[in-house]
Every structure is written in structure tokens, then in C-alpha cells.
């Protein structure tokens, strides 16, 4: 039994995969707590899909797709934030338009680009077993940045989320907080795409965070419980992916969903 747990880690690629999985599992629910509290699940999913063209361009030019996804994600986050502020078209409509348009553009580029060696399935469904040393460093750097920024803006972000009107009156830059949280969401999505894939990064953002919200009483403790659940789901998903040879995104998403179901059942019993 024990060898099933430790054997995979004689390979360096598995150690890299483990580091990235834990980062994805921990970081997604931390920002996910804000996504849930602000009702921005659709925005998160849309952001993930919209970075595809940026990643394809990186593949074509021979850059690291991860590095390319950072400016793409931040740019699209700013675009969506900008559009959502414009009155006339509702937020989810404008987000949906950008979502579909950008994803379609990315898929079209993938289909027409010549000489691309990229595996489309890995991009869409995640393949954490394939991450490079460079990806590990980029992910660690992004995670550190996100944690530091969230810590810095925590107080005003909670205020602006709970009571934006009063926050604005006392001089908190509510719009800036909005953009900042979207930018951080974009960065976390970039980390998450490696393990969960474009299509399923949503599951890592929302599901463990929702379970944490159910089990913990307060906002920050919900983030922490979510991060623990996310990490466990990611590691379990990594094993599933290794032994059953399935893409890591579905593996992690399935386990996260199972853990959420358990948390919900426990919560019902507790009440």
C-alpha cells in the first residue's frame, strides 16, 4: 500500500506536479471565497476560457504559455471589469460575449495554426504531469504575489464587498478594489489552468471554496478550510491522474465535487 503512495515521487515530473497541484488546490479557494461572496462565478469561468488565444500565441511564438497567460488574463480581467461598469448591457451578458468570442478565437487559432505540437486536450482539461521546472517557478511567484496582495487589501476588500456604498463614502477606492480582485483572480486562474485545464479550473475555484464556506463560520476561516479541501482534492486528483491515466482536470474536479457533497451532507446533519 505504502509504495503506491510514495513510488510515483521517484520521478521528478511527479514532484513538480505535486508542487503545482498543492498551489492550485490552495490558491483557487482563497480567491474563490471572494468569487462566491461577490457572485462572480460566471466571470471566473469566462476569464479562464478567454486566456486561450493568449496561450496559443505563446505556443506559436515559442514562449511559455503560462507566462503569456498572465498578461492575457490581466488584460481580459480589465476589459471585463470595464465592460461591466458600462450601463446598458448587463454584466453577465457582456462577460458572456467576451467569453464566447475569445474562446472561439482561441479554438480557431488552434485549428488553423500549422506545425503546433500542443496537445489541445492538455490545454482544455489540464495535464499537471507535464509541467516544467519553469512553470513551477512561475506558479510559485504568482502565488506569492497573490497572497501578498490579498493580505494588503484584505480589510478594504471585505469592506467594499460587504458594503460598497459606505466604503465609497469613507474614501475606499471601491472600483480599484474591484479591478484588483479581478486581476488576482486572473493570476490564480493562470496557475489553476495547468492542473485543472481551461474548462475545469472553475471547479477548483468554486467547489472547495463553497465547501469551506459551508464548514467554517467566518470569511477567512472559510478561505483556509477551502484551501485545505482544495489541496486534498488536488493531491488525490494527481494520484488518480497518475494511476488511471486520465487528465488531471477532471480527476481533481471529481474529487472536489465529492468532498463538497460530503461537506453538504455533514452540514445538514449538523443542523
Amino acid at each position: 500500500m505504502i509504495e503506491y503512495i510514495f513510488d510515483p515521487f521517484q520521478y521528478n515530473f511527479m514532484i513538480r506536479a505535486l508542487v503545482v497541484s498543492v498551489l492550485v488546490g490552495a490558491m483557487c479557494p482563497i480567491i474563490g471565497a471572494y468569487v462566491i461572496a461577490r457572485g462572480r462565478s460566471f466571470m471566473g469561468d469566462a476569464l479562464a476560457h478567454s486566456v486561450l488565444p493568449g496561450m496559443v500565441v505563446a505556443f506559436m511564438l515559442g514562449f511559455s504559455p503560462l507566462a503569456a497567460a498572465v498578461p492575457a488574463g490581466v488584460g481580459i480581467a480589465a476589459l471585463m471589469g470595464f465592460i461591466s461598469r458600462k450601463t446598458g448591457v448587463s454584466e453577465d451578458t457582456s462577460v458572456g460575449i467576451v467569453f464566447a468570442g475569445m474562446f472561439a478565437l482561441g479554438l480557431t487559432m488552434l485549428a488553423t495554426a500549422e506545425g503546433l505540437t500542443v496537445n489541445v486536450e492538455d490545454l482544455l482539461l489540464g495535464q499537471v504531469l507535464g509541467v516544467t521546472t519553469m512553470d513551477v517557478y512561475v506558479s510559485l511567484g504568482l502565488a506569492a504575489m497573490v497572497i501578498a496582495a490579498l493580505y494588503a487589501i484584505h480589510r478594504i476588500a471585505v469592506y467594499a464587498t460587504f458594503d460598497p456604498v459606505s466604503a465609497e463614502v469613507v474614501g475606499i477606492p471601491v472600483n480599484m478594489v474591484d479591478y484588483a480582485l479581478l486581476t488576482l483572480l486572473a493570476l490564480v486562474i493562470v496557475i489553476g489552468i495547468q492542473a485543472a485545464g481551461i474548462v475545469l479550473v472553475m471547479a477548483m475555484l468554486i467547489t472547495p471554496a463553497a465547501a469551506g464556506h459551508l464548514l467554517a463560520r467566518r470569511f477567512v476561516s472559510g478561505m483556509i478550510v477551502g484551501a485545505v479541501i482544495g489541496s486534498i482534492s488536488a493531491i488525490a486528483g494527481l494520484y488518480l491522474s497518475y494511476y488511471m491515466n486520465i487528465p488531471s482536470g477532471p480527476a481533481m474536479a471529481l474529487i472536489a465535487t465529492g468532498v463538497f457533497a460530503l461537506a453538504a451532507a455533514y452540514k445538514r446533519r449538523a443542523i
Partner: protein
Amino acid sequence: MATQNGSGVGPPSIVVNDLTIERSGTRILTDVSFEFGPGTLVGVVGPNGAGKSTLFEAISGRIPIHHGSAAIYADRPLNQGSVAYVPQRDSINWRIPVTVEDVVMMGRTNSKGWLRRYGREDRELCRQSLDRVNLWDRRSALMTELSGGQRQRAFIARALCQEASVLLLDESFSGVDVGAQEDIVQVLRGLRDEGKIILLATHDLTNLAERFDICLCINKHVCACGPPEEAFTPQVLEELYGSHGVVFATGGSSHSHEEPGRTPVQEQHEDTHPVHD
């Protein structure tokens, strides 16, 4: 033209002059003028859609002013917490789980010093504020676990913790039963006696005469402004609520007003929250 957030020493005041506000071509408020000095408890009265919230937005500098001016003179600028705003409950995001203490401590946050750690002084101020509204025992409760009246008192505690000299409360009585409304008024009277200016918007005419020093009656313009017994003439009630407004007598004590098809009882229903005052 613009909202001035005058800072200067001395007692606070609100001065509004010929204020006109338009939104996408429609006039919401026309030529509104009034002036309130320290130690005033004002009921801003008018039907839904009369422009009460818009007036608050203009006073607190959140929307552009098309004509006239609205200025608050206080001991420090607006963005350093001189004005406390208690919004309508619909504009609060109840999905984020915050405790009563979290909310009151928000009063220590303004445009300055986001990273500053809360010190002993901040915590002491928070404790005093919660004591004053009688919620110290409920400090660890989530806001969603409180009744409507307790929530309003928590927001008032935040205003106290903010050390604001002007309080703007938007529909603080809605969804709050009459007994809990009285508790809120009790706290506000104490604040008035300390020299604060308090404006409370309400569309509910219950017990106005007993509750407020001054009633500012608004329906897109100022219909009347003065002590309640002088402000509520039959003509003013007609302007505010149309021909259906008949029940309120000048200087009355417990007369209430009926909107068509809606009895005061329906408007005063309490939220279905587990804990009551």
C-alpha cells in the same frame, strides 16, 4: 457646483443650496435647499422614488451635481470618516460572512491607513460603540443572524466607531418592528445630544412627530422643512402621498398614514431572522 467637503474646526453643518440632480435626462431633485446645524435629528420623509436616496448620494459626494451645491462642514474631510452612511439593506452584500465586530471595526477604516494594524484604542472604541447600542453580547454573531433592528444598531455602532459627526441613514426603519424602531431612535437621540447631525430617510409616517426634531418632506423637491407639527399640513401630505394621504393630523402623536392598498402593519413586518431584539 460640486459637493464641497469642507474641513474646518467647529461644529458640523450641512448646507444644501438650490440642489438639482438629473439622471439620464430625468430630474430627480429640483432646487433643494436646507441647512442643518449641530445636534439635529432630521426625518427625511417622502414616498418611494421621491429622491431621498439620491439626496443622500449627493450630500455624500457620490454623484455629480448639475446645479447648486451640497456641502458638509466637519472636523475632517469626508474620506477620512466625518460622514457615516448606513445604506438600505438591499445594497448590503449579505453573502459575505462578517460578524458584528467585523462590521463595527470597519468604522476604523477610511482612505488613510489600510495597512495599519488595529491597536488597543481601536478595540476600545469598538467596545464602547457596541455597548452604546447594546450589542456587545452579540459581537461574535454573524450579521445575518441578527434581526433587522439589531442590524441597524450594528451599523450605527460602526458610525460611532468611525467617530463621524454626520450620520446618513437610508430607510433604517424598513423591515424593523415598531419596538425595535424605538430602540434605534433612542440611540439616535443620544447622538443628537452630543451634537451630531443625523438624517434618517423614511417613507413610513408612523410616530414621526415624536421621533424627529425636524422633518424634511421631499417629493422631487422640498415640500416642507421644519418641526413635524408645522411641516405636515394637509397640503404637504397631499404633495407627498397624493389624495390618499388623510390620516395624519398635525402635531399628532400616534397617527399613522395609509398608502393605498398597503397598511402600515405590512410595512412594519420584521425579517424572519432567528434572533429578535
